[in-house]
Protein backbone atom coordinates (compact mmCIF):
# COMPACT_ATOMS: atom_id res chain seq x y z
CA UNK A 1 0.00 0.00 0.00
CA UNK A 2 1.56 3.25 -1.16
CA UNK A 3 1.52 4.98 2.22
CA UNK A 4 2.98 2.04 4.17
CA UNK A 5 6.76 1.72 3.88
CA UNK A 6 7.18 -1.64 5.65
CA UNK A 7 7.72 -4.73 3.51
CA UNK A 8 6.85 -8.25 4.65
CA UNK A 9 10.57 -8.90 5.12
CA UNK A 10 10.80 -5.83 7.36
CA UNK A 11 7.82 -6.98 9.37
CA UNK A 12 9.27 -10.43 9.89
CA UNK A 13 12.64 -9.01 10.96
CA UNK A 14 11.02 -6.62 13.39
CA UNK A 15 8.79 -9.28 14.95
CA UNK A 16 11.88 -11.42 15.48
CA UNK A 17 13.68 -8.51 17.12
CA UNK A 18 10.72 -7.90 19.42
CA UNK A 19 10.62 -11.63 20.22
CA UNK A 20 7.06 -12.50 19.27
CA UNK A 21 5.84 -15.03 16.73
CA UNK A 22 3.21 -12.92 15.02
CA UNK A 23 1.60 -9.50 15.02
CA UNK A 24 -1.43 -10.69 16.94
CA UNK A 25 0.77 -11.31 19.97
CA UNK A 26 1.01 -7.53 20.24
CA UNK A 27 -2.78 -7.27 20.35
CA UNK A 28 -3.16 -9.88 23.07
CA UNK A 29 -4.75 -7.46 25.54
CA UNK A 30 -7.83 -7.16 23.35
CA UNK A 31 -10.34 -9.70 24.74
CA UNK A 32 -10.44 -12.66 22.37
CA UNK A 33 -14.22 -12.44 21.93
CA UNK A 34 -13.92 -8.81 20.80
CA UNK A 35 -11.14 -9.25 18.25
CA UNK A 36 -12.16 -8.88 14.63
CA UNK A 37 -11.40 -12.16 12.92
CA UNK A 38 -11.62 -10.75 9.41
CA UNK A 39 -11.44 -7.35 7.81
CA UNK A 40 -14.23 -4.83 8.23
CA UNK A 41 -17.11 -4.87 5.79
CA UNK A 42 -15.74 -1.97 3.76
CA UNK A 43 -14.43 -1.74 0.20
CA UNK A 44 -10.92 -2.83 -0.70
CA UNK A 45 -8.24 -0.25 -1.28
CA UNK A 46 -8.40 2.08 -4.26
CA UNK A 47 -5.54 3.39 -6.33
CA UNK A 48 -4.99 7.13 -6.51
CA UNK A 49 -6.59 7.15 -9.93
CA UNK A 50 -9.67 5.33 -8.67
CA UNK A 51 -10.05 7.71 -5.71
CA UNK A 52 -9.81 10.69 -8.06
CA UNK A 53 -12.42 9.24 -10.33
CA UNK A 54 -14.84 8.49 -7.51
CA UNK A 55 -14.47 11.84 -5.75
CA UNK A 56 -14.59 13.82 -8.99
CA UNK A 57 -17.95 12.24 -9.72
CA UNK A 58 -19.23 13.28 -6.31
CA UNK A 59 -17.82 16.78 -6.69
CA UNK A 60 -19.47 17.13 -10.10
CA UNK A 61 -22.88 16.65 -8.51
CA UNK A 62 -22.51 19.98 -6.73
CA UNK A 63 -23.03 23.45 -8.16
CA UNK A 64 -19.81 25.36 -7.50
CA UNK A 65 -20.11 29.04 -6.61
CA UNK A 66 -17.70 30.05 -9.34
CA UNK A 67 -19.78 28.37 -12.03
CA UNK A 68 -22.92 30.50 -11.66
CA UNK A 69 -24.02 34.01 -10.64
CA UNK A 70 -23.54 33.72 -6.89
CA UNK A 71 -25.04 35.83 -4.10
CA UNK A 72 -25.08 33.55 -1.06
CA UNK A 73 -23.77 34.94 2.27
CA UNK A 74 -25.37 34.65 5.70
CA UNK A 75 -22.12 34.11 7.55
CA UNK A 76 -19.77 32.74 4.86
CA UNK A 77 -18.71 34.72 1.79
CA UNK A 78 -17.21 34.00 -1.60
CA UNK A 79 -14.12 36.09 -2.17
CA UNK A 80 -11.24 35.73 -4.55
CA UNK A 81 -8.23 34.06 -2.95
CA UNK A 82 -4.91 34.85 -4.69
CA UNK A 83 -3.05 31.82 -6.04
CA UNK A 84 -0.01 32.45 -3.85
CA UNK A 85 -2.02 32.00 -0.67
CA UNK A 86 -3.02 28.45 -1.48
CA UNK A 87 0.44 27.69 -2.76
CA UNK A 88 2.14 28.84 0.42
CA UNK A 89 -0.12 26.98 2.84
CA UNK A 90 0.73 23.79 0.97
CA UNK A 91 4.42 24.11 1.70
CA UNK A 92 5.41 20.99 3.62
CA UNK A 93 6.75 22.92 6.57
CA UNK A 94 3.46 24.69 7.14
CA UNK A 95 1.11 21.90 6.10
CA UNK A 96 2.70 18.99 7.93
CA UNK A 97 4.05 20.60 11.06
CA UNK A 98 2.52 20.34 14.51
CA UNK A 99 1.60 22.82 17.23
CA UNK A 100 4.80 24.74 18.00
CA UNK A 101 5.57 23.19 21.40
CA UNK A 102 9.29 22.94 20.52
CA UNK A 103 9.83 26.58 19.60
CA UNK A 104 13.46 26.19 18.48
CA UNK A 105 12.28 24.27 15.43
CA UNK A 106 8.97 26.00 14.92
CA UNK A 107 9.83 29.67 14.47
CA UNK A 108 8.11 29.60 11.09
CA UNK A 109 4.77 28.80 12.67
CA UNK A 110 5.36 30.99 15.70
CA UNK A 111 6.34 34.11 13.81
CA UNK A 112 3.34 33.77 11.51
CA UNK A 113 1.07 33.42 14.55
CA UNK A 114 2.59 36.57 16.05
CA UNK A 115 1.94 38.42 12.79
CA UNK A 116 -1.61 37.05 12.68
CA UNK A 117 -2.28 38.21 16.25
CA UNK A 118 -1.00 41.68 15.35
CA UNK A 119 -3.16 41.83 12.22
CA UNK A 120 -6.31 40.76 14.05
CA UNK A 121 -5.72 43.27 16.85
CA UNK A 122 -5.24 46.02 14.25
CA UNK A 123 -8.27 45.02 12.17
CA UNK A 124 -10.58 44.97 15.16
CA UNK A 125 -8.89 47.93 16.87
CA UNK A 126 -8.44 45.93 20.07
CA UNK A 127 -5.40 45.55 22.33
CA UNK A 128 -4.68 41.86 21.95
CA UNK A 129 -5.80 38.87 19.86
CA UNK A 130 -5.24 35.13 20.23
CA UNK A 131 -3.91 32.60 17.72
CA UNK A 132 -7.45 31.86 16.44
CA UNK A 133 -10.32 29.57 17.44
CA UNK A 134 -12.31 27.06 15.40
CA UNK A 135 -14.73 29.57 13.86
CA UNK A 136 -16.81 32.66 14.58
CA UNK A 137 -19.64 30.78 16.28
CA UNK A 138 -17.46 28.91 18.79
CA UNK A 139 -15.43 32.08 19.31
CA UNK A 140 -18.71 33.74 20.33
CA UNK A 141 -19.45 30.89 22.76
CA UNK A 142 -15.99 31.39 24.27
CA UNK A 143 -16.50 35.15 24.46
CA UNK A 144 -19.68 34.70 26.49
CA UNK A 145 -17.92 32.25 28.83
CA UNK A 146 -15.11 34.76 29.25
CA UNK A 147 -17.58 37.54 30.07
CA UNK A 148 -19.15 35.29 32.73
CA UNK A 149 -15.75 34.67 34.31
CA UNK A 150 -14.84 38.36 34.31
CA UNK A 151 -18.12 39.74 35.66
CA UNK A 152 -18.90 36.72 37.86
CA UNK A 153 -22.42 36.89 36.42
CA UNK A 154 -24.04 34.26 34.25
CA UNK A 155 -26.62 35.90 31.99
CA UNK A 156 -26.00 36.82 28.36
CA UNK A 157 -28.31 38.93 26.19
CA UNK A 158 -28.17 37.92 22.55
CA UNK A 159 -29.11 40.56 20.00
CA UNK A 160 -31.86 39.80 17.51
CA UNK A 161 -29.30 40.65 14.85
CA UNK A 162 -26.91 37.88 15.86
CA UNK A 163 -26.44 35.08 13.32
CA UNK A 164 -29.01 32.43 14.32
CA UNK A 165 -26.44 29.61 14.28
CA UNK A 166 -24.21 31.63 16.61
CA UNK A 167 -27.14 32.28 18.94
CA UNK A 168 -28.08 28.59 18.91
CA UNK A 169 -24.54 27.54 19.79
CA UNK A 170 -24.37 30.02 22.68
CA UNK A 171 -27.74 28.76 23.84
CA UNK A 172 -26.66 25.10 23.79
CA UNK A 173 -23.59 25.79 25.90
CA UNK A 174 -25.59 27.99 28.27
CA UNK A 175 -28.24 25.30 28.77
CA UNK A 176 -25.56 22.72 29.47
CA UNK A 177 -23.85 24.94 32.02
CA UNK A 178 -27.11 26.04 33.62
CA UNK A 179 -26.51 29.66 32.65
CA UNK A 180 -29.16 32.26 31.90
CA UNK A 181 -29.66 33.88 28.53
CA UNK A 182 -32.11 36.11 26.75
CA UNK A 183 -32.48 35.86 22.97
CA UNK A 184 -34.07 38.98 21.49
CA UNK A 185 -36.51 38.54 18.63
CA UNK A 186 -35.16 38.82 15.09
CA UNK A 187 -34.24 42.46 14.54
CA UNK A 188 -34.69 42.90 10.79
CA UNK A 189 -34.15 46.65 10.72
CA UNK A 190 -31.37 46.85 13.29
CA UNK A 191 -33.54 48.98 15.53
CA UNK A 192 -33.47 47.18 18.88
CA UNK A 193 -32.38 49.02 22.01
CA UNK A 194 -30.83 47.66 25.17
CA UNK A 195 -31.61 50.37 27.76
CA UNK A 196 -34.13 48.40 29.74
CA UNK A 197 -32.58 45.01 29.16
CA UNK A 198 -29.11 45.18 30.70
CA UNK A 199 -29.28 44.81 34.49
CA UNK A 200 -27.11 43.84 37.47
CA UNK A 201 -27.37 40.16 36.53
CA UNK A 202 -26.20 40.67 32.96
CA UNK A 203 -22.67 39.58 32.17
CA UNK A 204 -22.71 40.67 28.54
CA UNK A 205 -24.66 41.83 25.54
CA UNK A 206 -23.72 40.04 22.32
CA UNK A 207 -24.24 42.24 19.28
CA UNK A 208 -23.21 41.61 15.66
CA UNK A 209 -22.06 44.26 13.20
CA UNK A 210 -22.81 44.18 10.28
CA UNK A 211 -25.75 42.25 11.68
CA UNK A 212 -27.33 39.07 10.30
CA UNK A 213 -29.76 41.10 8.18
CA UNK A 214 -26.92 43.26 6.86
CA UNK A 215 -27.61 46.42 8.88
CA UNK A 216 -24.71 48.48 10.18
CA UNK A 217 -24.93 49.29 13.88
CA UNK A 218 -23.23 51.84 16.04
CA UNK A 219 -22.23 49.74 19.03
CA UNK A 220 -21.23 52.74 21.19
CA UNK A 221 -24.71 53.04 22.68
CA UNK A 222 -24.85 49.42 23.80
CA UNK A 223 -21.26 49.70 25.05
CA UNK A 224 -22.23 52.64 27.27
CA UNK A 225 -25.33 50.90 28.60
CA UNK A 226 -23.27 47.81 29.44
CA UNK A 227 -20.54 49.79 31.13
CA UNK A 228 -23.07 51.60 33.30
CA UNK A 229 -24.35 48.27 34.60
CA UNK A 230 -20.99 46.56 35.01
CA UNK A 231 -21.60 44.30 32.02
CA UNK A 232 -19.41 43.70 28.97
CA UNK A 233 -20.03 44.19 25.27
CA UNK A 234 -19.21 41.21 23.09
CA UNK A 235 -19.03 42.42 19.48
CA UNK A 236 -19.39 39.83 16.72
CA UNK A 237 -18.82 39.95 12.96
CA UNK A 238 -19.19 37.31 10.28
CA UNK A 239 -17.71 39.21 7.31
CA UNK A 240 -14.08 40.13 8.02
CA UNK A 241 -13.72 42.17 4.83
CA UNK A 242 -16.22 44.65 6.29
CA UNK A 243 -13.49 45.79 8.66
CA UNK A 244 -11.75 47.41 5.70
CA UNK A 245 -14.50 49.96 5.39
CA UNK A 246 -16.72 49.86 8.48
CA UNK A 247 -15.91 51.26 11.93
CA UNK A 248 -14.23 48.46 13.91
CA UNK A 249 -15.66 47.17 17.21
CA UNK A 250 -12.69 48.45 19.22
CA UNK A 251 -13.53 52.00 18.14
CA UNK A 252 -17.07 51.55 19.45
CA UNK A 253 -16.28 50.33 22.96
CA UNK A 254 -16.29 46.55 22.57
CA UNK A 255 -14.76 44.60 25.46
CA UNK A 256 -14.43 41.28 23.66
CA UNK A 257 -14.56 40.67 19.91
CA UNK A 258 -15.46 37.34 18.31
CA UNK A 259 -15.57 37.03 14.55
CA UNK A 260 -15.32 34.84 11.50
CA UNK A 261 -12.19 35.21 9.37
CA UNK A 262 -13.21 32.90 6.50
CA UNK A 263 -13.67 35.79 4.08
CA UNK A 264 -9.95 36.44 4.01
CA UNK A 265 -7.73 33.72 2.54
CA UNK A 266 -10.21 30.85 2.87
CA UNK A 267 -12.62 29.21 0.44
CA UNK A 268 -16.27 28.48 1.21
CA UNK A 269 -15.49 24.79 1.85
CA UNK A 270 -19.15 23.98 2.52
CA UNK A 271 -18.88 25.41 6.02
CA UNK A 272 -15.45 24.42 7.30
CA UNK A 273 -12.64 24.67 8.16
CA UNK A 274 -13.04 28.34 8.98
CA UNK A 275 -11.14 30.59 11.36
CA UNK A 276 -12.37 32.16 14.57
CA UNK A 277 -10.94 35.59 15.37
CA UNK A 278 -10.83 36.59 19.02
CA UNK A 279 -9.59 39.83 20.55
CA UNK A 280 -9.98 41.76 23.77
CA UNK A 281 -8.60 44.56 25.97
CA UNK A 282 -5.23 44.14 27.72
CA UNK A 283 -6.79 44.14 31.15
CA UNK A 284 -8.75 40.97 30.29
CA UNK A 285 -5.77 39.11 28.86
CA UNK A 286 -5.52 36.39 31.50
CA UNK A 287 -9.09 35.30 30.95
CA UNK A 288 -8.72 35.02 27.18
CA UNK A 289 -9.09 31.46 25.92
CA UNK A 290 -7.03 29.82 23.21
CA UNK A 291 -3.41 29.82 22.23
CA UNK A 292 -1.20 32.87 22.52
CA UNK A 293 2.19 33.53 20.95
CA UNK A 294 4.59 35.98 22.57
CA UNK A 295 7.91 37.57 21.73
CA UNK A 296 11.06 36.76 23.64
CA UNK A 297 14.79 36.15 23.10
CA UNK A 298 16.86 33.01 22.80
CA UNK A 299 20.09 32.06 24.54
CA UNK A 300 22.12 33.88 21.85
CA UNK A 301 20.16 37.07 22.28
CA UNK A 302 18.18 36.75 19.06
CA UNK A 303 14.52 37.64 18.91
CA UNK A 304 12.21 34.62 18.82
CA UNK A 305 8.64 33.62 19.56
CA UNK A 306 7.04 31.07 21.89
CA UNK A 307 3.59 29.95 22.95
CA UNK A 308 2.93 31.67 26.23
CA UNK A 309 0.51 32.05 29.11
CA UNK A 310 -0.29 28.37 28.58
CA UNK A 311 -1.25 27.88 32.18
CA UNK A 312 -4.72 29.13 31.26
CA UNK A 313 -5.16 26.17 28.93
CA UNK A 314 -6.63 22.69 29.28
CA UNK A 315 -3.41 20.73 29.30
CA UNK A 316 -2.43 22.34 32.56
CA UNK A 317 -5.59 23.63 34.25
CA UNK A 318 -7.79 20.68 33.20
CA UNK A 319 -11.28 21.27 34.62
CA UNK A 320 -10.39 24.81 35.69
CA UNK A 321 -9.13 25.84 32.27
CA UNK A 322 -10.43 28.93 30.52
CA UNK A 323 -11.66 26.60 27.77
CA UNK A 324 -11.35 23.00 26.60
CA UNK A 325 -9.91 24.14 23.28
CA UNK A 326 -6.77 22.29 22.14
CA UNK A 327 -6.29 23.01 18.40
CA UNK A 328 -6.54 26.44 16.85
CA UNK A 329 -7.23 27.03 13.16
CA UNK A 330 -3.58 26.69 12.18
CA UNK A 331 -3.50 26.56 8.43
CA UNK A 332 -6.74 28.49 7.97
CA UNK A 333 -5.38 31.33 10.11
CA UNK A 334 -2.14 31.24 8.12
CA UNK A 335 -4.13 31.60 4.90
CA UNK A 336 -5.94 34.57 6.45
CA UNK A 337 -2.66 36.17 7.42
CA UNK A 338 -0.98 35.63 4.04
CA UNK A 339 -3.92 37.11 2.17
CA UNK A 340 -3.99 40.09 4.50
CA UNK A 341 -0.24 40.56 4.03
CA UNK A 342 -0.76 40.68 0.28
CA UNK A 343 -3.63 43.15 0.66
CA UNK A 344 -2.24 45.55 3.25
CA UNK A 345 -4.33 48.53 4.41
CA UNK A 346 -4.58 49.96 0.92
CA UNK A 347 -5.64 46.70 -0.70
CA UNK A 348 -8.09 45.79 2.04
CA UNK A 349 -9.80 49.15 1.84
CA UNK A 350 -10.06 48.93 -1.92
CA UNK A 351 -11.42 45.39 -1.70
CA UNK A 352 -14.00 46.50 0.84
CA UNK A 353 -15.02 49.47 -1.33
CA UNK A 354 -15.53 47.17 -4.32
CA UNK A 355 -17.67 44.86 -2.17
CA UNK A 356 -19.80 47.74 -0.98
CA UNK A 357 -20.09 49.25 -4.44
CA UNK A 358 -21.22 45.91 -5.86
CA UNK A 359 -23.80 45.53 -3.14
CA UNK A 360 -25.09 49.04 -3.78
CA UNK A 361 -25.32 48.23 -7.49
CA UNK A 362 -27.25 45.05 -6.72
CA UNK A 363 -29.61 46.90 -4.38
CA UNK A 364 -30.28 49.49 -7.10
CA UNK A 365 -31.04 46.73 -9.60
CA UNK A 366 -33.38 45.01 -7.20
CA UNK A 367 -35.26 48.22 -6.46
CA UNK A 368 -36.39 48.06 -10.06
CA UNK A 369 -37.96 44.61 -9.72
CA UNK A 370 -41.69 44.62 -9.01
CA UNK A 371 -42.86 43.12 -5.74
CA UNK A 372 -39.41 43.36 -4.23
CA UNK A 373 -38.02 45.75 -1.60
CA UNK A 374 -34.59 46.17 -0.07
CA UNK A 375 -35.23 46.74 3.64
CA UNK A 376 -31.86 48.09 4.79
CA UNK A 377 -30.96 51.74 5.23
CA UNK A 378 -27.33 50.80 5.71
CA UNK A 379 -25.34 47.71 4.77
CA UNK A 380 -21.85 46.59 3.79
CA UNK A 381 -22.03 43.79 1.22
CA UNK A 382 -25.23 42.03 2.23
CA UNK A 383 -28.85 43.11 2.74
CA UNK A 384 -32.37 41.80 3.26
CA UNK A 385 -34.92 41.70 0.46
CA UNK A 386 -38.64 41.43 1.12
CA UNK A 387 -40.60 39.71 -1.64
CA UNK A 388 -44.21 39.06 -2.41
CA UNK A 389 -43.95 35.32 -2.08
CA UNK A 390 -42.30 32.43 -0.27
CA UNK A 391 -38.56 33.13 -0.14
CA UNK A 392 -37.48 29.47 0.06
CA UNK A 393 -39.51 28.57 -3.02
CA UNK A 394 -38.25 31.61 -4.93
CA UNK A 395 -34.62 30.87 -4.11
CA UNK A 396 -35.15 27.23 -5.17
CA UNK A 397 -36.63 28.34 -8.50
CA UNK A 398 -33.76 30.75 -9.04
CA UNK A 399 -31.34 27.87 -8.43
CA UNK A 400 -33.15 25.79 -11.02
CA UNK A 401 -32.62 28.69 -13.42
CA UNK A 402 -28.89 28.62 -12.66
CA UNK A 403 -28.61 31.53 -10.23
CA UNK A 404 -27.67 31.07 -6.56
CA UNK A 405 -29.57 34.09 -5.41
CA UNK A 406 -29.07 34.38 -1.67
CA UNK A 407 -30.43 32.61 1.41
CA UNK A 408 -34.08 32.50 2.50
CA UNK A 409 -34.11 33.79 6.09
CA UNK A 410 -36.53 30.98 6.97
CA UNK A 411 -33.69 28.50 6.44
CA UNK A 412 -32.09 29.78 9.63
CA UNK A 413 -35.17 31.25 11.35
CA UNK A 414 -38.11 28.98 10.51
CA UNK A 415 -41.53 29.63 11.94
CA UNK A 416 -40.89 33.28 12.84
CA UNK A 417 -43.06 34.84 10.16
CA UNK A 418 -39.97 35.77 8.13
CA UNK A 419 -40.79 33.51 5.20
CA UNK A 420 -40.81 36.40 2.72
CA UNK A 421 -37.23 37.54 3.33
CA UNK A 422 -34.08 36.77 1.35
CA UNK A 423 -30.51 37.64 2.36
CA UNK A 424 -28.44 38.60 -0.66
CA UNK A 425 -24.68 39.18 -0.56
CA UNK A 426 -22.54 40.71 -3.29
CA UNK A 427 -18.75 40.57 -3.19
CA UNK A 428 -15.96 41.54 -5.57
CA UNK A 429 -16.54 38.36 -7.60
CA UNK A 430 -19.88 39.58 -9.00
CA UNK A 431 -20.06 41.24 -12.41
CA UNK A 432 -22.74 43.37 -14.06
CA UNK A 433 -23.83 40.28 -15.94
CA UNK A 434 -24.26 38.44 -12.65
CA UNK A 435 -26.43 41.20 -11.25
CA UNK A 436 -28.54 41.27 -14.39
CA UNK A 437 -28.96 37.51 -14.14
CA UNK A 438 -30.01 37.85 -10.49
CA UNK A 439 -32.66 40.42 -11.25
CA UNK A 440 -33.96 38.43 -14.17
CA UNK A 441 -34.08 35.16 -12.27
CA UNK A 442 -35.76 36.83 -9.32
CA UNK A 443 -38.35 38.41 -11.55
CA UNK A 444 -38.97 35.09 -13.25
CA UNK A 445 -39.21 33.16 -10.00
CA UNK A 446 -41.74 35.64 -8.61
CA UNK A 447 -44.04 35.47 -11.55
CA UNK A 448 -44.35 31.68 -11.42
Amino acid at each position, binding site marked *: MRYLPLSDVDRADMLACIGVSGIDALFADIPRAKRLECDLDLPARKTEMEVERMLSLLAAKNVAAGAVPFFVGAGAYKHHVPASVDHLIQRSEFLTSYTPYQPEIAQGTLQTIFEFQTQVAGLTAMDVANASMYDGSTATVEAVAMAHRLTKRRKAILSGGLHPHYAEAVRTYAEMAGDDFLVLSPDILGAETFDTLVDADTSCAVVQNPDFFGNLRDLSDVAAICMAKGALLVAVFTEAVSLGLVKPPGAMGADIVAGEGQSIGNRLNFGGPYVGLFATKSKYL*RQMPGRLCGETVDASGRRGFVLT*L*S*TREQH*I*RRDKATSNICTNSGLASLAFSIHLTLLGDAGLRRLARINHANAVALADRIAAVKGVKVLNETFFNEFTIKIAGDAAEVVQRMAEKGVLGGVPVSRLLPGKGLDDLILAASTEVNTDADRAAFAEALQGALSC
Partner: protein
Amino acid sequence: MTTRYTKSHEYVRVEGGMGVVGITDHAQTQLGDVVFVELPPIGQRLSKGDEAATVESVKAAAEVSAPVSGTVVEINGALADSPGLVNQDPTGRGWFLKIELSDAAEVDSLMDEDAYRAFLQAAS
Protein backbone atom coordinates in the same frame (compact mmCIF):
# COMPACT_ATOMS: atom_id res chain seq x y z
CA MET B 1 6.39 34.35 66.37
CA THR B 2 5.82 30.82 65.07
CA THR B 3 5.96 29.47 61.56
CA ARG B 4 3.91 26.44 60.61
CA TYR B 5 3.61 24.40 57.42
CA THR B 6 0.92 22.52 55.53
CA LYS B 7 1.19 19.27 53.59
CA SER B 8 0.52 21.30 50.44
CA HIS B 9 3.62 23.40 51.06
CA GLU B 10 2.11 26.62 52.32
CA TYR B 11 3.53 28.35 55.37
CA VAL B 12 1.94 30.72 57.86
CA ARG B 13 4.06 32.93 60.11
CA VAL B 14 1.93 33.87 63.07
CA GLU B 15 2.46 36.85 65.36
CA GLY B 16 -0.18 38.35 67.61
CA GLY B 17 -3.27 37.06 65.87
CA MET B 18 -1.99 37.85 62.34
CA GLY B 19 -0.54 35.35 59.91
CA VAL B 20 1.68 35.97 56.87
CA VAL B 21 0.98 33.30 54.25
CA GLY B 22 3.12 32.15 51.32
CA ILE B 23 4.54 29.05 49.68
CA THR B 24 7.68 27.27 50.81
CA ASP B 25 11.04 27.07 49.12
CA HIS B 26 10.28 23.47 48.15
CA ALA B 27 7.08 24.58 46.41
CA GLN B 28 8.74 27.34 44.43
CA THR B 29 11.48 24.95 43.25
CA GLN B 30 8.85 22.49 42.05
CA LEU B 31 6.91 25.19 40.21
CA GLY B 32 9.78 26.78 38.37
CA ASP B 33 9.87 30.44 37.40
CA VAL B 34 6.71 32.08 38.71
CA VAL B 35 5.10 34.33 36.13
CA PHE B 36 1.84 35.37 37.76
CA VAL B 37 0.14 35.35 41.13
CA GLU B 38 -3.58 35.88 41.62
CA LEU B 39 -4.42 37.14 45.10
CA PRO B 40 -7.78 37.38 46.88
CA PRO B 41 -9.49 40.70 47.55
CA ILE B 42 -8.87 42.43 50.88
CA GLY B 43 -11.70 41.57 53.23
CA GLN B 44 -12.17 38.07 51.81
CA ARG B 45 -13.17 35.55 54.50
CA LEU B 46 -11.36 32.26 54.19
CA SER B 47 -11.84 28.95 55.93
CA LYS B 48 -8.90 26.65 56.48
CA GLY B 49 -8.33 24.74 53.23
CA ASP B 50 -10.16 27.21 50.98
CA GLU B 51 -8.48 28.25 47.77
CA ALA B 52 -6.81 31.53 48.72
CA ALA B 53 -4.66 32.30 45.71
CA THR B 54 -3.30 30.80 42.49
CA VAL B 55 0.30 30.83 41.40
CA GLU B 56 1.32 30.25 37.79
CA SER B 57 4.69 29.33 36.45
CA VAL B 58 5.62 28.78 32.82
CA LYS B 59 4.59 25.14 32.88
CA ALA B 60 2.26 24.75 35.81
CA ALA B 61 -0.48 26.34 37.83
CA ALA B 62 -1.17 25.62 41.46
CA GLU B 63 -3.71 26.57 44.05
CA VAL B 64 -2.60 28.06 47.31
CA SER B 65 -4.87 26.94 50.14
CA ALA B 66 -5.49 28.94 53.29
CA PRO B 67 -3.53 27.24 56.08
CA VAL B 68 -5.81 28.83 58.66
CA SER B 69 -9.21 30.50 58.76
CA GLY B 70 -9.58 34.25 58.91
CA THR B 71 -9.97 37.49 56.98
CA VAL B 72 -7.53 38.79 54.38
CA VAL B 73 -6.22 42.14 55.60
CA GLU B 74 -3.30 42.75 53.24
CA ILE B 75 -1.95 41.37 49.97
CA ASN B 76 1.55 41.67 48.50
CA GLY B 77 1.19 44.21 45.68
CA ALA B 78 4.85 43.79 44.68
CA LEU B 79 4.05 40.41 43.15
CA ALA B 80 2.11 42.03 40.31
CA ASP B 81 5.25 43.53 38.78
CA SER B 82 7.77 41.10 40.24
CA PRO B 83 6.33 37.60 40.46
CA GLY B 84 9.92 36.33 40.56
CA LEU B 85 10.09 37.40 44.20
CA VAL B 86 8.29 34.14 44.99
CA ASN B 87 11.30 32.26 43.62
CA GLN B 88 13.99 34.53 45.00
CA ASP B 89 12.67 34.96 48.53
CA PRO B 90 9.56 32.81 49.13
CA THR B 91 9.46 33.27 52.88
CA GLY B 92 10.49 36.93 52.86
CA ARG B 93 9.63 39.42 50.11
CA GLY B 94 7.70 36.73 48.20
CA TRP B 95 4.87 36.59 50.75
CA PHE B 96 1.32 36.36 49.37
CA LEU B 97 -1.15 37.66 51.94
CA LYS B 98 -1.78 38.50 55.58
CA ILE B 99 -4.70 36.95 57.45
CA GLU B 100 -6.31 38.01 60.67
CA LEU B 101 -6.81 34.64 62.36
CA SER B 102 -10.29 33.74 63.48
CA ASP B 103 -9.23 30.62 65.39
CA ALA B 104 -5.70 30.66 66.83
CA ALA B 105 -5.98 26.99 67.84
CA GLU B 106 -5.87 25.89 64.19
CA VAL B 107 -2.14 26.69 64.13
CA ASP B 108 -1.42 23.83 66.51
CA SER B 109 -2.56 21.17 64.07
CA LEU B 110 -0.05 22.29 61.42
CA MET B 111 3.51 20.99 61.12
CA ASP B 112 6.39 22.84 62.72
CA GLU B 113 9.78 23.33 61.04
CA ASP B 114 11.17 19.95 62.06
CA ALA B 115 8.01 18.06 61.17
CA TYR B 116 7.88 19.73 57.74
CA ARG B 117 11.51 18.90 57.07
CA ALA B 118 10.84 15.28 57.99
CA PHE B 119 7.75 15.30 55.78
CA LEU B 120 9.81 16.49 52.80
CA GLN B 121 12.47 13.91 53.52
CA ALA B 122 9.93 11.09 53.57
CA ALA B 123 8.29 12.19 50.35
CA SER B 124 11.47 12.40 48.26
